[in-house]
């Protein structure tokens, strides 16, 4: 089995889906000739032609709007938003149209569309190329929100997203595009949307994470293991709808929960996990549920020292784990 990068896995998934299903097409800024600013669609324009890998104008509203229209017509669009930071012009289309179509047509019409968007900081991207947007969409019934943390899941989840009859927001941890590598089988397989994945078994405390923070969390857990603290790590993978069963099973075992995300603390997705635990596993708790998140400042700063201050990293996560383990 080949070891490939996260972005290779994403490209492989799109390549295979384009080859498998004539109705699948890609639309986005610079996805065609350029192969995407991150090279996610590299080679696909040449392979499948300009009618299936379409360079769009710089208008996210139209990328998603076109996607919804095509989806209603029976196509399976993969819309790429170049950076998640740019998704807001399309917010209305996503939340008010795509998310509600199935519900308002009583299931008669659905929008089988994927919106891919690289998210997250730590790449020196500054205010407009570092944002985390998951909390906005994980609030909207009618959407599914998927965030892979490794190449295997990235490929399998993207394939599931393409085949899903309803809109899926597929957020890609861009810092991990070339950093995160892993074995991915050649050929067709899927990873179901929904189930979380216990990526490390442990007994002392549970850390919930996704995307890049999951990658860091595993590193921190290794460090803690050498200190004698046995950390269980849950990769949420699908944050909406969330896999409550796995979330609860783990905390019921360990009694302690830490949630890590790089999005701002307040109103961030971690609050939802904390609430689920508080409501349904209260009598299993041995410590307050804790969150390690980006601070409540408007954006990830451009200055590198300030970016480091903003971003959770393995050291910060290890410290939070230690504190919780000691409680």
């Amino acid at each position, binding site marked *: 089995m080949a070891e490939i990068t996260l972005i290779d896995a994403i490209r492989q998934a799109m390549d295979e889906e384009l080859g498998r299903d004539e109705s699948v097409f890609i639309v986005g800024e610079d996805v065609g000739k350029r192969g995407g600013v991150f090279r996610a669609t590299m080679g696909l324009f040449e392979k499948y032609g300009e009618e299936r890998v379409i360079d769009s104008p710089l208008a996210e509203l139209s990328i998603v709007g076109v996607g919804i229209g095509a989806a209603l017509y029976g196509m399976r669009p993969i819309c790429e938003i170049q950076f998640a930071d740019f998704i807001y012009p399309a917010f209305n289309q996503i939340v008010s149209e795509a998310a509600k179509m199935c519900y308002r047509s009583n299931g008669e019409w659905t929008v089988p569309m994927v919106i891919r968007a690289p998210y997250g900081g730590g790449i020196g991207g500054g205010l407009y190329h570092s944002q985390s947007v998951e909390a906005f969409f994980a609030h909207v019934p009618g959407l599914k929100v998927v965030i892979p943390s490794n190449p295997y899941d990235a490929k399998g989840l993207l394939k599931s997203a393409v085949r899903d009859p309803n809109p899926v927001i597929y957020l890609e941890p861009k810092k991990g595009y070339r950093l995160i590598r892993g074995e991915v089988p050649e050929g067709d397989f899927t990873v179901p949307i929904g189930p979380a994945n216990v990526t490390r078994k442990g007994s002392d405390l549970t850390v919930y994470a996704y995307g890049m923070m999951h990658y860091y969390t595993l590193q921190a857990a290794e460090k803690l293991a050498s200190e004698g603290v046995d950390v269980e790590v849950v990769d949420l993978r699908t944050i909406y709808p969330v896999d409550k069963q796995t979330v609860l099973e783990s905390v019921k075992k360990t*009694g302690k929960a830490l949630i890590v995300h790089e999005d701002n603390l307040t109103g961030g997705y971690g609050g939802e996990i904390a609430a689920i635990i508080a409501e349904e596993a209260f*009598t*299993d*708790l*041995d*410590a307050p549920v804790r969150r390690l998140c980006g601070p409540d400042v408007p954006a990830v700063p451009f200055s590198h020292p300030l970016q480091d201050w903003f971003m959770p990293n393995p050291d910060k996560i290890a410290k939070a784990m230690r504190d919780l383990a*000691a*409680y």
Partner: protein
Amino acid sequence: MATKIIMPQLGESVVEGTVTTWLKKEGDTIAEYDSLLEINTDKVDTEIPSPAGGTILKILVPEGTTVRAGTVLAWIGQPGEEVPAGEPVEALQKTPGPVGEPAEPAVDALRQAQEPVGEPTEPAVDALRQAQAPVGEPAEPAAEPVETQPVAPERDLGFISPVVARLAKDKQVDLNQVKGTGQGGRITKKDVMDYLASGPSTKEAPAEVSPWDTPGEGDLFRPTELMFSTGKPPAVEPAEGQPPVVRQAPQPAPVPAEGKVEDRLIPHTTMRKRIAEHMVLSKHTSPHVTTVMESDFKQVVAHYEKNKEAFARDGVKLTYTAYFAAAAAAALRAFPLVNSSWSDEGVVVHPQVNLSIAVSLGEEGLIVPVIPNADGLSLLGLARAINDIASRARAHRLKPDEVRGGTFSITNHGTSGSLFATPVINQPQSAILGVGAVKKRAVVIDGDAIAVRPMVYLSLTFDHRILDGASADGFLAKVVEILDNWPA
């Protein structure tokens, strides 16, 4: 040979004390008679001197915990010396569990959680009961049955997390037996699991057996307070090496969230709690009625001005309170019914006049030390006694017995400008005299003339179960008469 520091019994009726401050910590050296710790009983703080010189080997009772008199608080000895008797918790584990007395969990939540299992339904209990009460054999004399029964250990368990509370309930774990390794000694889930894995897997549910269910044991001959568990273990001196019996210490205030202005919680001090308990108790106990009269202080003021310097030469600061005390003491001799307490059998009239004098300690609270046999003291003696108890009250140097045994109270709220007030009775007394500020007022005197006189309102709050308006007024009128006609 190490020396043990025990919680002293600081007064006849004082059976427990709170360790407020350790003045030395473990490892420190201390000379004999140097102050070692401060303890608090009810409302009085006392410094305890070290009974020996040496090194503090081990402090067993942390600050803020209340233990019974006789409890070992610490050990003093030579550096490196072994502390006699094992870890207190372990020492208890070896003690066989009593049948009749269920172990009492220290935490209220747990107590509720364990309630259902306290019912005597287990057949095993019956078997035990039979074994303990052999048919036909004479019952053992139960002269001191309590001392042979291990008292349920209670210690401040700290924060009990939801999962620990649940496990303790489900698995019948007495958390007092579990060693805490979490923050601040908190018992973690892991500690409970480790305890369960190492110790006896599950303990027999503690079963409560009513005294009337255990004939033949001599229970019927026991004093009633021993027969009916009051929830509080009887005051017996714990055996050496036995762990301290601890009551729950006040919880720290919750930490407010960052950036938010929250209400501030002032944790109750012992004094504040005692005041609150007493005030509520008093209002619930006695039907309070207050009667008010006024006194012309001309004579007293004249006497005061004339004598204060002479008193000062004797080292005594003369105050108006001394006059009130003298007048009240004399009036109490004339109206002995006011110097009494209510009991269900009848009104208990006290032969001694022991005056309780309220002393304000500012925001901290209020304390009411007693001048015993006040009716036998001259004005100088009263003034000296008042000076003494007031200054020692403010310095927290009163002895516990000095706040007990009062038969009548005086509160001088006039010192803070109040004209008259309706004080709350200091139980179990029958009345309290409130004295207001001495103010010059235009008053009509003999012969329909108007004069400027220093006047003072005197309010008497009395227990209407004991005293009626007429008898209370008679007493108050006597006080006024004495003050009005003070020989200048």
